């Protein structure tokens, strides 16, 4: 066990990377690839827990890959900010993989299932690598590993809906632009500081008091590159298509992890590598990012309201929720950052669960449009119940996760004196009530279609299989737990993270 505690970080990345290749070559069989992949993800989750425990004891772990000392070798750096996110990604991967078996059987052609799981494992490895690495160029490498596998995964939705192909292409172009911008930014930074180690960059930039115009340009490129990846409004146009047409398990996994990992990188670069005490960082975050975030919150919420496709509704809602997290960054205080961090975790749980529930509905009834949800509460009561709980959480009903983080954000905004931001949070929460309420009205108050009735007129129940129910009910329960009691733990986690990011009290 002590080995796991020591090398868990590297293990969590290397294992899925290696096993991806193995899974891709496994013989065609319904359960084999899934079993192996699930075992890998379970091991990764255990490793992530071990890493979190070690980090909680040690505060900060620097793991030297191959024994090379930083700043020359590549180091993995774990602290209070990324250890919880590492676990979040692993746990969401586990939930998605549990759900994957029946879904993949229905959505992916048998000969492609091995490669599908391989790509999913690669994506997991890439996202985890992005989060733990302490080397800026390494970040780019892992970003590309996860992105390229994601493009493939989205395209595999073509079996179900041909529009997945154009969505994947669109995502490919924009994702590559984002990654390129990021690497350009890192290049400028390298030119300025002469190092790729993020910790090193920080010391050098601080000594240069923010550096010259070069580092300003670097910052601009990095913010926009990451902004594309995390779906900063108006750079979100790839997201609705990718979420709506990719295989259901991919949507759930991406919605709960991919944008979150990118957001984590934004935290890192804005607060660790750069620092809000540099004027240009404060201005860009406080005006440009905040402005776009708030615009995005309102616009995307309105767009979500008018969608006819349920998954597109949720996709636009994701854009709006990213706005909340960016607003938390823009507040530039520890409280704001803690709220943002908390919302990141909560939203991953909520959106992951919602997409899983929708996936189960598709699995049983082929539902994609809001109108098709008619009477789903009678045919799939458990799934609908989980969906409802998570929807309440998304809206921000008290005693759910969404409430806790929205209140934290609103309080932080109020503390800063940004009453207009409190107003925007309220308005968009009401809009969320409308767009989620519209879905639930159909689910609860319309009659199920005639095809779901038996001869005697009673409604036939067709609940999702247990493998789908377990993760979604689990996530719904987690979101309620966070709302009731867990917020004590999570609030502590998010505040610690925020304090690591902003060592002082911020503005």
């Amino acid at each position, binding site marked *: 066990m002590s080995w796991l505690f020591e090398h868990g970080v590297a293990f969590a990345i290397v294992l899925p990377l290696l096993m991806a290749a193995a899974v891709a070559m496994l013989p065609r069989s319904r359960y084999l690839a899934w079993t192996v992949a699930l075992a890998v993800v379970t091991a990764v989750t255990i490793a992530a827990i071990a890493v979190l425990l070690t980090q909680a004891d040690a505060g900060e772990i620097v793991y030297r890959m191959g024994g090379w000392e930083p700043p020359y070798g590549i180091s993995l750096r774990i602290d209070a900010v990324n250890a919880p996110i590492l676990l979040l990604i692993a746990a969401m991967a586990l939930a998605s993989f549990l759900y994957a078996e029946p879904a993949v059987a229905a959505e992916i052609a048998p000969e492609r299932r091995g490669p599908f799981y391989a790509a999913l494992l690669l994506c997991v490895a890439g996202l985890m690598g992005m989060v733990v690495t302490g080397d800026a160029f390494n970040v780019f490498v892992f970003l590309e590993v996860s992105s390229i596998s994601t493009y493939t995964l989205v395209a595999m939705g073509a079996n179900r809906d041909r529009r997945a192909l154009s969505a994947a292409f669109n995502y490919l172009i*924009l994702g590559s*632009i984002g990654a390129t911008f990021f690497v350009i930014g890192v290049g400028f930074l390298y030119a300025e500081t002469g190092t790729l180690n993020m910790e090193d960059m920080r010391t050098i930039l601080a000594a240069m008091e923010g550096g010259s115009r070069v580092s300003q340009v670097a910052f*601009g490129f990095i913010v926009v590159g990451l902004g594309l990846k995390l779906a900063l409004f108006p750079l979100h146009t790839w997201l609705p298509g990718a979420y709506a047409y990719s295989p259901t398990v991919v949507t759930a996994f991406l919605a709960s992890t991919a944008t979150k990992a990118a957001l984590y990188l934004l935290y890192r670069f804005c607060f660790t590598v750069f620092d809000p005490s540099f004027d240009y960082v404060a201005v860009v975050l406080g005006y440009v990012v905040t402005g776009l975030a708030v615009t995005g919150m309102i616009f995307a919420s309105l767009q979500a309201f008018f969608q006819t496709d349920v998954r597109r509704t949720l996709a636009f809602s994701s854009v709006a929720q990213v706005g909340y997290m960016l607003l938390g960054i823009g507040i530039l205080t520890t409280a704001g950052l803690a709220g943002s961090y908390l919302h990141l975790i909560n939203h991953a749980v909520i959106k992951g669960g919602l997409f899983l529930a929708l996936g189960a509905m598709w699995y049983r009834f082929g539902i994609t449009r809001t109108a098709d949800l008619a009477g789903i509460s009678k045919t799939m009561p458990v799934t609908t119940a989980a969906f409802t709980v998570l929807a309440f959480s998304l809206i921000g009903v008290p005693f759910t996760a969404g409430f806790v983080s929205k209140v934290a954000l609103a309080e932080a905004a109020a503390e800063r004196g940004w009453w207009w931001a409190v107003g925007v949070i309220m308005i968009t929460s009401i809009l969320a009530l409308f767009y989620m309420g519209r879905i639930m009205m159909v689910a609860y108050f319309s009659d199920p279609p005639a095809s779901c009735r038996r001869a005697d007129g009673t409604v036939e129940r067709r609940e999702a299989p247990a493998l789908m129910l377990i993760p979604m009910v689990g996530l719904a329960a987690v979101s309620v737990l966070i709302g009731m009691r867990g917020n004590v733990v999570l609030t502590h986690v998010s505040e610690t993270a925020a304090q690591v990011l902003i060592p002082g009290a911020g503005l």
Partner: protein
Amino acid sequence: MTDALPLLAQINPGLWVILAGLLAALLPVGPARKALAIAAPLFAAVMIFDIYDSTEVLAGQFEIMGVELTTLRIDNLSVVWGYLFCLAGLINAIYALHEDSWITDSSALVYTGAAIAGVLSGDMLSLFLFWELTAISSVFLVWQGGDRAYHAGIRYLVIQVLSGVLLLAGAVMFANSRGGDFMFDYVGLDAPGGWLLLIAMGIKAGFPMLHMWMQDAYPKASITGTVILASFTTKFAIYALARAFPGTDILIWIGCIMTMFPVFFAVVENDLRRVLAYSLNNQLGFMVAGIGIGTTLAMNGVVGQVFVHVIFKGLLFMSIGAVIYRTGTAKASELGGLFRSMPYTTVLCLIGAGSIAAFPLLAAFVTKAMILSAALEEHLWVPFAMMLFASAGVMEHSGIKVPHFTFFAHDSGRRVREAPWNMLLAMSLAALLCIVLAWPWGGYELLYSIMPYPTDYKPYTWDHVVFQMQLLFAAIFAFTLLKRFRLYPAERRAEIVDMDILYRKIGRGAAVWADAVWTRLSARMSLGRGKAARRLGRRLYQAFSPAGALSHAAPSGLASVMTVTVLALVLVFAYVAGR
């Protein structure tokens, strides 16, 4: 101090009654529920007696989410309400003995318990909790009135819950300004959240313009429901006002207006329970005005007035309830001459009517005099005159109109049986208290003994008795004169209805006209609103829907241009801000 109290004394006595109510909701046996309904208020009263030792008792403190709660506070103010509500609960339970309805039994108990617990709770959060609980539990009593009562019940619930929400908002603002201390004490209007609290309490107390729910819901509830409703909600609010806003000048004027405006409505109203609801409003006005004056004499008067008011108002509602129980109606135009068949009810109703009109030797004589004297002592001439007018009005509509049209006037020809024994017993108990609490030789001192401040006010002085009699007889004379004048041309049965119509022509005509105007206006407005909403909806749809301007499948080329634009934006900002 707190630790020395045994565990039982840490528990708010109202909670026992609530518990009994919850039990009653599960009990299928009628007699067992009735036993609970009688025993629970008695037990609560015993507990209050046990805990209270004539100094302020604070108990039941615990901390939740960093807020210190004091769930039990019995001092010289709250103890009066505690006892009073127990007493009212007991009388109501006796009155409801004949009715076999588990909804009424359990909700009445929960409601009573919530009112007791509310006045005995020491912090604003507990107060808020019970404030809402009284609203939620009592709405079931309104709904017991049948189909007609359903919508009234909904309106009642909405307004009551709104009041609770305002209370909570005010409490949070107030507590924030004091560093998170939620203790419920003097607030005053200058404190943050003071106005919110005042409006919240004002809704429940039936301030003018905020009073509609009372006349709307009370007459529509079931027979026992009305009696129970009339006992608690508004008095609970009076307690809160007495605690939070004693001596707030604006309350004097609010109270005086409150005493006056219901007089006009009560006079033109035909439904006798509605008349009583208006007169309830008017009585509350005296209390609010007394709180506004805020001197020791006035506060004593308010406390005494609340105490006797619950008893005689209950008595009046009970007697009208008995009439409805036997005849099925409370319309003045359909009743009359019932003294022949319901003699006991008639006498008891007359005692209640005399009490509310403040006849010497009957309940309100002492307490109303205290409030009026307090106004005089403070040289508040105008309020004094307004309250004097209102006193005559009370005599007119509650003292004369209610018993006259029910039991005397023209004979409606109804021959019914006397009220059931349990109703008579409950009414007798109330009537007895009305007499005892104003008895000149030792009776009213009983009332003094529970007042918050020591007093030696002498109500039975010659000038006061004579003055009061003059006022009352003037009112009776006016009524008789009017009636005689209308009667004179011919003895027709319809004469009361005629007079009714005459009364109504002014009030009702204006109301009908206003209603018509309002209907037309609101139809226009809603048409306009609808148009605007549709236009807005279309605009939004055009912009945001999948077919809309913002959602055209953005080609990646356009998106790339967008990316560059954002980059440019970021760089410009960074350039300007950087050195």
